[in-house]
Protein backbone atom coordinates (compact mmCIF):
# COMPACT_ATOMS: atom_id res chain seq x y z
CA UNK A 1 0.00 0.00 0.00
CA UNK A 2 1.31 3.39 -0.92
CA UNK A 3 2.08 5.76 1.91
CA UNK A 4 0.12 8.95 2.16
CA UNK A 5 1.08 12.27 3.68
CA UNK A 6 -1.20 15.10 4.74
CA UNK A 7 0.11 18.53 3.76
CA UNK A 8 -1.76 21.53 5.14
CA UNK A 9 -1.47 24.54 2.90
CA UNK A 10 -2.97 27.80 4.00
CA UNK A 11 -3.76 30.43 1.43
CA UNK A 12 -1.57 32.99 3.12
CA UNK A 13 1.01 30.60 4.42
CA UNK A 14 2.78 28.03 2.34
CA UNK A 15 5.61 25.78 3.37
CA UNK A 16 6.77 23.42 0.67
CA UNK A 17 9.28 23.08 -2.06
CA UNK A 18 8.56 24.76 -5.37
CA UNK A 19 9.16 23.88 -8.99
CA UNK A 20 11.21 26.41 -10.97
CA UNK A 21 8.64 26.96 -13.68
CA UNK A 22 6.42 29.84 -14.66
CA UNK A 23 4.11 31.05 -11.88
CA UNK A 24 4.75 28.70 -8.97
CA UNK A 25 3.83 25.08 -8.55
CA UNK A 26 3.68 23.10 -5.35
CA UNK A 27 6.20 20.31 -5.22
CA UNK A 28 7.25 17.55 -2.92
CA UNK A 29 10.44 15.66 -2.48
CA UNK A 30 9.88 12.11 -3.71
CA UNK A 31 12.89 9.84 -3.38
CA UNK A 32 15.24 12.80 -3.64
CA UNK A 33 13.51 14.28 -6.68
CA UNK A 34 11.45 17.46 -6.64
CA UNK A 35 8.10 16.41 -8.09
CA UNK A 36 5.22 18.75 -8.90
CA UNK A 37 2.01 18.12 -7.00
CA UNK A 38 -0.69 17.17 -9.45
CA UNK A 39 -3.72 14.96 -9.85
CA UNK A 40 -3.12 11.79 -11.77
CA UNK A 41 -6.72 11.49 -12.90
CA UNK A 42 -7.92 14.08 -15.43
CA UNK A 43 -11.28 14.15 -13.62
CA UNK A 44 -11.51 15.27 -10.00
CA UNK A 45 -14.59 14.51 -7.83
CA UNK A 46 -15.49 16.92 -5.06
CA UNK A 47 -18.06 17.10 -2.26
CA UNK A 48 -19.63 20.16 -0.67
CA UNK A 49 -20.39 20.37 3.03
CA UNK A 50 -24.05 20.49 3.88
CA UNK A 51 -23.84 23.58 6.06
CA UNK A 52 -23.79 27.23 5.11
CA UNK A 53 -23.18 30.48 6.92
CA UNK A 54 -25.11 33.70 7.37
CA UNK A 55 -26.11 35.03 3.92
CA UNK A 56 -24.77 31.94 2.11
CA UNK A 57 -26.64 28.64 2.21
CA UNK A 58 -24.97 25.31 1.51
CA UNK A 59 -26.63 25.29 -1.92
CA UNK A 60 -25.42 28.81 -2.73
CA UNK A 61 -21.92 27.86 -1.59
CA UNK A 62 -21.97 24.76 -3.79
CA UNK A 63 -23.13 26.86 -6.75
CA UNK A 64 -20.36 29.43 -6.33
CA UNK A 65 -17.73 26.71 -5.96
CA UNK A 66 -19.07 24.89 -9.02
CA UNK A 67 -18.75 28.09 -11.06
CA UNK A 68 -15.18 28.47 -9.84
CA UNK A 69 -14.41 24.89 -10.89
CA UNK A 70 -15.94 25.62 -14.29
CA UNK A 71 -13.59 28.58 -14.67
CA UNK A 72 -10.55 26.30 -14.39
CA UNK A 73 -12.13 23.51 -16.39
CA UNK A 74 -12.85 25.90 -19.27
CA UNK A 75 -9.21 26.84 -19.80
CA UNK A 76 -8.85 25.81 -23.43
CA UNK A 77 -5.22 24.72 -23.17
CA UNK A 78 -5.63 22.57 -20.05
CA UNK A 79 -7.02 19.06 -19.79
CA UNK A 80 -8.62 18.75 -16.36
CA UNK A 81 -12.25 18.36 -15.37
CA UNK A 82 -14.29 18.26 -12.21
CA UNK A 83 -17.50 16.65 -11.10
CA UNK A 84 -19.69 17.45 -8.12
CA UNK A 85 -20.25 14.22 -6.17
CA UNK A 86 -22.84 15.54 -3.70
CA UNK A 87 -23.28 17.11 -0.28
CA UNK A 88 -21.61 15.53 2.71
CA UNK A 89 -21.54 15.76 6.47
CA UNK A 90 -17.76 15.34 6.37
CA UNK A 91 -15.60 18.35 7.15
CA UNK A 92 -12.64 19.79 5.27
CA UNK A 93 -9.10 18.92 6.33
CA UNK A 94 -10.02 15.43 7.51
CA UNK A 95 -8.06 12.65 5.87
CA UNK A 96 -11.10 10.65 4.73
CA UNK A 97 -10.43 9.79 1.09
CA UNK A 98 -12.79 12.39 -0.38
CA UNK A 99 -12.20 16.02 -1.40
CA UNK A 100 -14.47 18.19 0.71
CA UNK A 101 -15.13 21.90 0.30
CA UNK A 102 -17.03 24.01 2.79
CA UNK A 103 -17.07 26.56 5.58
CA UNK A 104 -15.14 26.20 8.80
CA UNK A 105 -15.17 28.69 11.63
CA UNK A 106 -11.55 29.66 12.27
CA UNK A 107 -11.62 33.00 14.12
CA UNK A 108 -7.97 32.63 15.16
CA UNK A 109 -6.92 32.75 11.51
CA UNK A 110 -7.85 36.40 11.31
CA UNK A 111 -6.19 37.01 7.93
CA UNK A 112 -7.00 33.73 6.27
CA UNK A 113 -10.05 33.71 4.01
CA UNK A 114 -9.57 30.16 2.87
CA UNK A 115 -7.09 27.31 2.78
CA UNK A 116 -6.39 24.09 0.94
CA UNK A 117 -4.95 20.85 2.23
CA UNK A 118 -3.63 17.85 0.35
CA UNK A 119 -3.22 14.17 0.94
CA UNK A 120 -0.50 12.99 -1.40
CA UNK A 121 0.98 9.70 -2.38
CA UNK A 122 4.50 9.98 -1.01
CA UNK A 123 5.83 7.51 -3.57
CA UNK A 124 4.56 9.22 -6.71
CA UNK A 125 3.75 12.73 -5.53
CA UNK A 126 0.21 12.42 -6.84
CA UNK A 127 -2.61 14.23 -5.09
CA UNK A 128 -4.99 11.69 -3.56
CA UNK A 129 -7.32 14.10 -1.79
CA UNK A 130 -7.60 17.87 -1.43
CA UNK A 131 -9.90 19.82 0.86
CA UNK A 132 -10.76 23.51 0.93
CA UNK A 133 -12.24 25.50 3.77
CA UNK A 134 -13.59 29.02 3.69
CA UNK A 135 -13.24 30.85 6.97
CA UNK A 136 -16.73 31.38 8.38
CA UNK A 137 -15.33 34.12 10.60
CA UNK A 138 -15.64 36.47 7.60
CA UNK A 139 -18.74 37.86 5.89
CA UNK A 140 -19.41 36.12 2.56
CA UNK A 141 -21.48 36.77 -0.53
CA UNK A 142 -22.50 34.86 -3.63
CA UNK A 143 -24.30 37.81 -5.24
CA UNK A 144 -23.75 38.09 -9.00
CA UNK A 145 -22.24 41.57 -8.75
CA UNK A 146 -20.62 41.11 -5.36
CA UNK A 147 -21.73 42.82 -2.18
CA UNK A 148 -20.00 45.67 -0.34
CA UNK A 149 -18.43 44.56 2.91
CA UNK A 150 -18.63 40.87 2.03
CA UNK A 151 -16.00 38.68 0.42
CA UNK A 152 -16.95 37.11 -2.87
CA UNK A 153 -17.02 33.35 -2.34
CA UNK A 154 -16.55 32.53 -6.02
CA UNK A 155 -13.40 34.66 -6.25
CA UNK A 156 -11.83 33.06 -3.18
CA UNK A 157 -12.92 29.62 -4.37
CA UNK A 158 -11.24 30.24 -7.72
CA UNK A 159 -8.01 31.03 -5.88
CA UNK A 160 -8.25 28.00 -3.61
CA UNK A 161 -9.07 25.66 -6.50
CA UNK A 162 -5.84 26.88 -8.09
CA UNK A 163 -4.10 25.47 -5.02
CA UNK A 164 -6.18 22.29 -5.21
CA UNK A 165 -4.80 21.84 -8.72
CA UNK A 166 -1.22 22.21 -7.53
CA UNK A 167 -0.53 25.87 -8.12
CA UNK A 168 1.19 27.93 -5.47
CA UNK A 169 1.15 31.73 -5.27
CA UNK A 170 2.01 34.17 -8.00
CA UNK A 171 3.85 37.40 -7.23
CA UNK A 172 2.21 39.39 -10.03
CA UNK A 173 0.94 42.21 -7.90
CA UNK A 174 1.75 45.37 -6.02
CA UNK A 175 0.85 46.10 -2.42
CA UNK A 176 1.26 48.76 0.22
CA UNK A 177 1.58 48.36 3.96
CA UNK A 178 -1.50 49.24 5.99
CA UNK A 179 -0.89 51.44 9.02
CA UNK A 180 -2.94 48.95 11.01
CA UNK A 181 -0.80 46.04 9.85
CA UNK A 182 -0.97 43.72 6.89
CA UNK A 183 -0.96 44.79 3.28
CA UNK A 184 -3.44 46.31 0.88
CA UNK A 185 -3.37 45.13 -2.70
CA UNK A 186 -2.88 48.01 -5.13
CA UNK A 187 -3.03 45.80 -8.19
CA UNK A 188 -2.48 42.25 -9.34
CA UNK A 189 -2.60 40.23 -12.51
CA UNK A 190 -3.06 36.75 -11.15
CA UNK A 191 -5.90 35.09 -9.31
CA UNK A 192 -3.11 33.20 -7.53
CA UNK A 193 -1.70 36.38 -5.98
CA UNK A 194 -1.62 35.61 -2.24
CA UNK A 195 -3.62 38.59 -1.00
CA UNK A 196 -7.27 39.20 -1.78
CA UNK A 197 -8.46 42.38 -3.49
CA UNK A 198 -10.83 42.75 -0.57
CA UNK A 199 -14.50 42.66 0.29
CA UNK A 200 -16.94 43.44 -2.49
CA UNK A 201 -14.47 42.82 -5.30
CA UNK A 202 -15.27 40.05 -7.81
CA UNK A 203 -12.29 40.49 -10.16
CA UNK A 204 -10.72 37.17 -9.19
CA UNK A 205 -13.55 35.20 -10.71
CA UNK A 206 -11.67 35.60 -14.01
CA UNK A 207 -8.37 33.82 -14.59
CA UNK A 208 -5.42 35.85 -15.81
CA UNK A 209 -2.76 34.74 -18.33
CA UNK A 210 -0.39 33.77 -15.50
CA UNK A 211 -3.04 31.46 -14.02
CA UNK A 212 -3.87 29.99 -17.42
CA UNK A 213 -0.20 29.32 -18.14
CA UNK A 214 0.18 27.68 -14.73
CA UNK A 215 -2.71 25.24 -14.97
CA UNK A 216 -1.93 24.48 -18.60
CA UNK A 217 1.65 23.64 -17.72
CA UNK A 218 0.45 21.23 -15.02
CA UNK A 219 -2.34 19.66 -17.09
CA UNK A 220 -1.46 20.41 -20.71
CA UNK A 221 -3.76 19.55 -23.56
CA UNK A 222 -2.29 17.99 -26.68
CA UNK A 223 -1.38 21.31 -28.31
CA UNK A 224 -0.19 23.35 -25.36
CA UNK A 225 3.52 22.60 -25.68
CA UNK A 226 3.43 23.12 -29.43
CA UNK A 227 1.60 26.43 -29.24
CA UNK A 228 3.55 28.07 -26.42
CA UNK A 229 7.19 28.72 -25.65
CA UNK A 230 9.45 29.36 -22.70
CA UNK A 231 12.23 31.59 -21.42
CA UNK A 232 15.08 30.36 -19.26
CA UNK A 233 17.90 32.27 -17.68
CA UNK A 234 19.31 33.57 -14.46
CA UNK A 235 19.47 36.74 -12.42
CA UNK A 236 22.77 38.17 -11.19
CA UNK A 237 23.62 40.86 -8.63
CA UNK A 238 27.25 41.97 -8.58
CA UNK A 239 28.08 38.80 -10.49
CA UNK A 240 26.42 36.57 -7.91
CA UNK A 241 23.24 34.55 -8.50
CA UNK A 242 20.10 35.99 -6.97
CA UNK A 243 17.79 33.62 -5.12
CA UNK A 244 14.08 34.43 -4.99
CA UNK A 245 13.92 37.15 -7.65
CA UNK A 246 10.55 37.66 -9.30
CA UNK A 247 10.91 37.54 -13.10
CA UNK A 248 8.09 38.93 -15.23
CA UNK A 249 7.67 38.23 -18.94
CA UNK A 250 5.62 40.91 -20.69
CA UNK A 251 4.25 40.07 -24.15
CA UNK A 252 4.65 43.21 -26.22
CA UNK A 253 1.78 42.55 -28.57
CA UNK A 254 -0.91 41.45 -26.11
CA UNK A 255 0.25 43.14 -22.91
CA UNK A 256 0.01 39.82 -21.05
CA UNK A 257 2.14 39.04 -18.00
CA UNK A 258 3.39 35.61 -17.00
CA UNK A 259 5.98 35.37 -14.26
CA UNK A 260 8.29 33.06 -12.42
CA UNK A 261 11.04 33.05 -9.80
CA UNK A 262 14.70 32.23 -9.44
CA UNK A 263 14.47 29.21 -7.22
CA UNK A 264 17.91 27.69 -6.97
CA UNK A 265 21.40 28.65 -5.87
CA UNK A 266 22.42 29.35 -9.45
CA UNK A 267 19.77 32.07 -9.68
CA UNK A 268 18.04 30.25 -12.50
CA UNK A 269 14.47 30.66 -13.64
CA UNK A 270 12.17 29.19 -16.24
CA UNK A 271 8.95 30.76 -17.48
CA UNK A 272 6.88 28.37 -19.57
CA UNK A 273 3.51 28.54 -21.26
CA UNK A 274 4.28 31.84 -22.97
CA UNK A 275 2.46 33.18 -25.99
CA UNK A 276 4.99 33.22 -28.87
CA UNK A 277 6.36 36.62 -29.77
CA UNK A 278 8.47 39.47 -28.44
CA UNK A 279 8.71 39.85 -24.67
CA UNK A 280 10.17 42.41 -22.30
CA UNK A 281 11.70 40.90 -19.16
CA UNK A 282 11.47 42.77 -15.87
CA UNK A 283 13.02 41.54 -12.62
CA UNK A 284 12.04 42.76 -9.17
CA UNK A 285 12.63 41.76 -5.56
CA UNK A 286 9.93 39.77 -3.84
CA UNK A 287 8.73 42.53 -1.56
CA UNK A 288 4.97 42.77 -2.12
CA UNK A 289 3.94 39.99 0.22
CA UNK A 290 5.51 37.87 2.92
CA UNK A 291 8.19 35.71 1.35
CA UNK A 292 6.94 32.62 3.15
CA UNK A 293 3.60 32.98 1.38
CA UNK A 294 5.46 31.93 -1.79
CA UNK A 295 8.10 29.40 -0.75
CA UNK A 296 10.48 28.35 1.95
CA UNK A 297 13.93 28.78 0.44
CA UNK A 298 15.83 30.21 3.33
CA UNK A 299 17.62 33.48 2.73
CA UNK A 300 16.34 35.17 -0.40
CA UNK A 301 17.73 38.39 -1.85
CA UNK A 302 15.48 41.46 -1.86
CA UNK A 303 18.08 44.22 -1.72
CA UNK A 304 18.21 45.06 -5.39
CA UNK A 305 16.51 47.50 -7.71
CA UNK A 306 13.93 46.37 -10.25
CA UNK A 307 15.43 46.23 -13.73
CA UNK A 308 14.54 45.49 -17.34
CA UNK A 309 16.58 43.00 -19.34
CA UNK A 310 18.62 44.73 -22.03
CA UNK A 311 17.19 42.78 -24.96
CA UNK A 312 13.85 41.92 -26.45
CA UNK A 313 13.31 38.18 -25.96
CA UNK A 314 11.66 36.40 -28.87
CA UNK A 315 9.77 33.33 -27.72
CA UNK A 316 9.21 30.68 -30.39
CA UNK A 317 6.18 28.42 -30.53
CA UNK A 318 7.10 25.01 -29.21
CA UNK A 319 10.56 25.97 -28.04
CA UNK A 320 12.64 28.11 -25.76
CA UNK A 321 14.15 31.52 -26.36
CA UNK A 322 17.93 31.80 -26.11
CA UNK A 323 18.98 31.80 -22.45
CA UNK A 324 19.06 35.24 -20.84
CA UNK A 325 21.20 36.62 -18.03
CA UNK A 326 19.59 39.57 -16.29
CA UNK A 327 21.88 41.81 -14.24
CA UNK A 328 20.33 43.84 -11.45
CA UNK A 329 21.91 46.55 -9.34
CA UNK A 330 21.93 47.07 -5.58
CA UNK A 331 19.37 49.36 -3.96
Amino acid at each position, binding site marked *: MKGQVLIAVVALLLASAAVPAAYLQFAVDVNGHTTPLRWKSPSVRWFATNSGVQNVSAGAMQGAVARAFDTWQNVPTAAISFSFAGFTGATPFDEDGISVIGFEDEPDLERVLGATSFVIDDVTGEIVEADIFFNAAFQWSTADAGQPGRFDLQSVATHEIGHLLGLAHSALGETELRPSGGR*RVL*ASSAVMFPISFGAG*NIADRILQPDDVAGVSDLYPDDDFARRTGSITGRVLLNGRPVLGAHVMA*FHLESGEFVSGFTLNDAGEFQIAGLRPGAHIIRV*EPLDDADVDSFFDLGSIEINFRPAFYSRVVAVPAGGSAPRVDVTVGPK
Partner: protein
Amino acid sequence: MNSWWCGLVLAAMSLPGGVSAQTPSREPRFEVTGAAGLQAGADLAAQNGDLRANSTPPQPFTLFTTESRVAQSWLTEGRVGWRVTPRITVEGRLGYSRPTLEVSAGADTEGAPPITIVERIDQYVVDAGVVIRLDEVRIAGLMPYAAAGAGYLRQLHEGLTVIEQGHVYHVGGGVNRELWTPNGRLVRAAGLRVDARVYFLAGGVAPDVVTQGTVTAGIFVRF
Protein backbone atom coordinates in the same frame (compact mmCIF):
# COMPACT_ATOMS: atom_id res chain seq x y z
CA MET B 1 16.09 57.10 -51.10
CA ASN B 2 19.35 58.83 -51.85
CA SER B 3 18.77 61.82 -54.13
CA TRP B 4 21.49 60.83 -56.65
CA TRP B 5 19.97 57.39 -57.08
CA CYS B 6 16.47 58.77 -57.43
CA GLY B 7 17.78 61.23 -60.01
CA LEU B 8 19.49 58.44 -61.93
CA VAL B 9 16.29 56.44 -62.12
CA LEU B 10 14.23 59.40 -63.29
CA ALA B 11 16.87 60.36 -65.84
CA ALA B 12 16.86 56.85 -67.23
CA MET B 13 13.09 56.85 -67.45
CA SER B 14 13.09 60.08 -69.42
CA LEU B 15 15.29 58.63 -72.16
CA PRO B 16 13.64 58.04 -75.53
CA GLY B 17 11.92 54.69 -75.35
CA GLY B 18 13.09 51.58 -77.07
CA VAL B 19 16.79 51.39 -77.60
CA SER B 20 15.86 48.78 -80.12
CA ALA B 21 12.80 50.01 -81.97
CA GLN B 22 11.84 46.70 -83.45
CA THR B 23 8.39 45.48 -82.46
CA PRO B 24 8.27 42.08 -80.82
CA SER B 25 6.51 39.41 -82.76
CA ARG B 26 4.03 38.81 -79.90
CA GLU B 27 2.98 40.53 -76.70
CA PRO B 28 5.13 39.36 -73.80
CA ARG B 29 3.15 37.69 -71.06
CA PHE B 30 5.70 36.84 -68.41
CA GLU B 31 7.59 39.52 -66.45
CA VAL B 32 10.31 39.39 -63.82
CA THR B 33 11.32 42.40 -61.76
CA GLY B 34 14.15 42.95 -59.33
CA ALA B 35 14.08 46.13 -57.30
CA ALA B 36 15.38 47.89 -54.24
CA GLY B 37 14.23 50.85 -52.28
CA LEU B 38 13.11 52.17 -48.95
CA GLN B 39 10.57 50.98 -46.46
CA ALA B 40 9.28 53.73 -44.19
CA GLY B 41 9.42 53.43 -40.44
CA ALA B 42 6.31 53.15 -38.31
CA ASP B 43 5.37 53.88 -34.74
CA LEU B 44 3.74 50.89 -33.13
CA ALA B 45 0.99 51.39 -30.61
CA ALA B 46 2.22 52.01 -27.07
CA GLN B 47 1.61 49.03 -24.80
CA ASN B 48 1.49 49.63 -21.07
CA GLY B 49 2.46 47.03 -18.53
CA ASP B 50 -0.91 47.14 -16.83
CA LEU B 51 -1.97 45.14 -13.80
CA ARG B 52 -5.56 45.02 -12.57
CA ALA B 53 -5.97 47.82 -10.06
CA ASN B 54 -7.85 47.15 -6.86
CA SER B 55 -10.90 49.14 -7.84
CA THR B 56 -14.53 48.67 -8.75
CA PRO B 57 -15.12 48.84 -11.65
CA PRO B 58 -11.69 47.47 -12.64
CA GLN B 59 -9.13 50.01 -13.78
CA PRO B 60 -5.59 49.42 -15.08
CA PHE B 61 -2.61 49.98 -12.81
CA THR B 62 0.31 50.92 -15.02
CA LEU B 63 3.46 49.25 -13.70
CA PHE B 64 5.52 50.59 -16.61
CA THR B 65 5.06 51.88 -20.11
CA THR B 66 6.53 50.72 -23.39
CA GLU B 67 6.78 52.32 -26.78
CA SER B 68 7.89 50.54 -29.92
CA ARG B 69 8.93 51.64 -33.36
CA VAL B 70 10.01 49.89 -36.50
CA ALA B 71 12.68 52.07 -38.10
CA GLN B 72 13.05 52.95 -41.78
CA SER B 73 15.08 50.42 -43.69
CA TRP B 74 16.29 49.30 -47.08
CA LEU B 75 14.07 46.91 -48.95
CA THR B 76 14.77 44.46 -51.75
CA GLU B 77 12.11 42.68 -53.68
CA GLY B 78 11.52 40.33 -56.57
CA ARG B 79 8.34 40.20 -58.58
CA VAL B 80 6.99 37.69 -61.04
CA GLY B 81 4.03 38.67 -63.17
CA TRP B 82 1.76 36.97 -65.68
CA ARG B 83 -0.21 39.12 -68.05
CA VAL B 84 -3.77 37.83 -68.07
CA THR B 85 -5.15 40.46 -70.44
CA PRO B 86 -3.45 43.36 -72.16
CA ARG B 87 -4.33 45.55 -69.15
CA ILE B 88 -4.26 43.16 -66.23
CA THR B 89 -1.32 41.33 -64.80
CA VAL B 90 -1.35 38.97 -61.85
CA GLU B 91 1.81 39.43 -59.84
CA GLY B 92 3.57 37.71 -56.99
CA ARG B 93 6.21 39.34 -54.84
CA LEU B 94 8.85 38.40 -52.28
CA GLY B 95 10.09 41.35 -50.26
CA TYR B 96 12.89 41.33 -47.72
CA SER B 97 13.96 44.03 -45.31
CA ARG B 98 15.94 44.28 -42.08
CA PRO B 99 14.40 47.06 -40.04
CA THR B 100 15.34 47.68 -36.45
CA LEU B 101 12.74 47.27 -33.76
CA GLU B 102 13.20 49.95 -31.13
CA VAL B 103 11.47 49.29 -27.82
CA SER B 104 11.55 51.68 -24.89
CA ALA B 105 10.38 50.74 -21.42
CA GLY B 106 10.13 53.27 -18.62
CA ALA B 107 7.97 55.18 -16.14
CA ASP B 108 8.34 52.21 -13.82
CA THR B 109 6.38 52.64 -10.60
CA GLU B 110 9.12 50.88 -8.63
CA GLY B 111 11.98 52.79 -10.18
CA ALA B 112 13.45 50.36 -12.68
CA PRO B 113 15.81 52.43 -14.84
CA PRO B 114 14.30 53.23 -18.24
CA ILE B 115 15.75 51.36 -21.16
CA THR B 116 15.73 51.53 -24.95
CA ILE B 117 16.36 48.28 -26.78
CA VAL B 118 17.30 48.21 -30.45
CA GLU B 119 17.09 44.88 -32.24
CA ARG B 120 17.20 43.73 -35.85
CA ILE B 121 14.25 42.04 -37.45
CA ASP B 122 14.35 40.08 -40.68
CA GLN B 123 11.06 40.79 -42.35
CA TYR B 124 9.74 38.72 -45.24
CA VAL B 125 6.59 39.51 -47.15
CA VAL B 126 5.15 37.14 -49.73
CA ASP B 127 2.14 38.58 -51.47
CA ALA B 128 0.09 38.36 -54.62
CA GLY B 129 -2.00 40.96 -56.32
CA VAL B 130 -3.37 42.49 -59.45
CA VAL B 131 -1.62 45.16 -61.52
CA ILE B 132 -3.84 47.21 -63.82
CA ARG B 133 -2.20 49.15 -66.64
CA LEU B 134 -3.57 52.68 -66.92
CA ASP B 135 -3.32 53.27 -70.66
CA GLU B 136 -5.52 56.35 -70.40
CA VAL B 137 -2.92 58.33 -68.50
CA ARG B 138 0.14 57.14 -70.36
CA ILE B 139 2.67 59.92 -70.73
CA ALA B 140 5.24 59.54 -73.48
CA GLY B 141 6.93 56.19 -72.80
CA LEU B 142 5.86 56.03 -69.17
CA MET B 143 3.20 53.46 -68.47
CA PRO B 144 1.45 54.01 -65.15
CA TYR B 145 -0.30 51.26 -63.27
CA ALA B 146 -2.30 50.71 -60.13
CA ALA B 147 -1.92 47.66 -57.89
CA ALA B 148 -3.50 45.97 -54.90
CA GLY B 149 -3.10 42.65 -53.17
CA ALA B 150 -2.61 40.66 -50.01
CA GLY B 151 -0.08 38.25 -48.59
CA TYR B 152 1.85 36.73 -45.72
CA LEU B 153 4.17 38.43 -43.26
CA ARG B 154 6.96 36.70 -41.38
CA GLN B 155 9.17 38.50 -38.90
CA LEU B 156 12.27 36.85 -37.49
CA HIS B 157 14.24 38.07 -34.55
CA GLU B 158 18.04 38.13 -34.45
CA GLY B 159 19.08 34.49 -34.29
CA LEU B 160 16.25 33.62 -36.68
CA THR B 161 13.67 32.98 -34.01
CA VAL B 162 10.22 33.61 -35.38
CA ILE B 163 8.70 36.55 -33.58
CA GLU B 164 5.45 36.88 -35.41
CA GLN B 165 3.56 35.85 -38.49
CA GLY B 166 0.71 37.77 -39.95
CA HIS B 167 -0.94 39.16 -43.04
CA VAL B 168 -0.32 42.12 -45.27
CA TYR B 169 -2.57 44.07 -47.57
CA HIS B 170 -1.36 46.66 -50.00
CA VAL B 171 -2.45 49.29 -52.48
CA GLY B 172 -0.31 51.46 -54.67
CA GLY B 173 0.99 51.94 -58.12
CA GLY B 174 3.89 53.07 -60.19
CA VAL B 175 5.23 53.56 -63.66
CA ASN B 176 7.41 51.51 -65.94
CA ARG B 177 9.39 52.44 -68.95
CA GLU B 178 10.51 50.09 -71.66
CA LEU B 179 14.09 50.82 -72.60
CA TRP B 180 15.01 47.78 -74.64
CA THR B 181 12.80 45.73 -76.94
CA PRO B 182 15.00 43.18 -78.68
CA ASN B 183 13.65 40.90 -81.31
CA GLY B 184 14.91 37.88 -79.49
CA ARG B 185 13.01 34.68 -79.04
CA LEU B 186 13.25 34.78 -75.26
CA VAL B 187 13.53 38.32 -73.95
CA ARG B 188 10.86 40.59 -75.41
CA ALA B 189 11.44 43.77 -73.47
CA ALA B 190 13.31 45.26 -70.54
CA GLY B 191 13.16 48.53 -68.72
CA LEU B 192 12.85 50.42 -65.48
CA ARG B 193 10.09 50.32 -62.97
CA VAL B 194 9.32 52.65 -60.06
CA ASP B 195 6.78 51.44 -57.56
CA ALA B 196 5.16 53.00 -54.47
CA ARG B 197 2.90 51.08 -52.13
CA VAL B 198 1.22 51.39 -48.81
CA TYR B 199 1.33 48.15 -46.82
CA PHE B 200 -0.99 47.36 -43.95
CA LEU B 201 0.69 44.80 -41.69
CA ALA B 202 -1.56 42.83 -39.35
CA GLY B 203 -0.34 40.27 -36.82
CA GLY B 204 3.31 41.30 -36.71
CA VAL B 205 5.17 42.55 -33.66
CA ALA B 206 2.84 45.51 -33.46
CA PRO B 207 -0.32 45.16 -31.38
CA ASP B 208 -2.34 46.91 -34.06
CA VAL B 209 -2.31 47.16 -37.82
CA VAL B 210 0.81 49.01 -38.95
CA THR B 211 0.87 51.17 -42.05
CA GLN B 212 4.18 51.19 -43.90
CA GLY B 213 5.01 52.94 -47.15
CA THR B 214 7.52 51.54 -49.61
CA VAL B 215 9.23 53.08 -52.62
CA THR B 216 11.31 50.88 -54.89
CA ALA B 217 13.00 51.18 -58.25
CA GLY B 218 14.29 48.36 -60.36
CA ILE B 219 14.61 46.57 -63.63
CA PHE B 220 11.99 44.44 -65.32
CA VAL B 221 12.45 41.89 -68.03
CA ARG B 222 9.54 40.57 -70.10
CA PHE B 223 9.48 37.22 -71.80
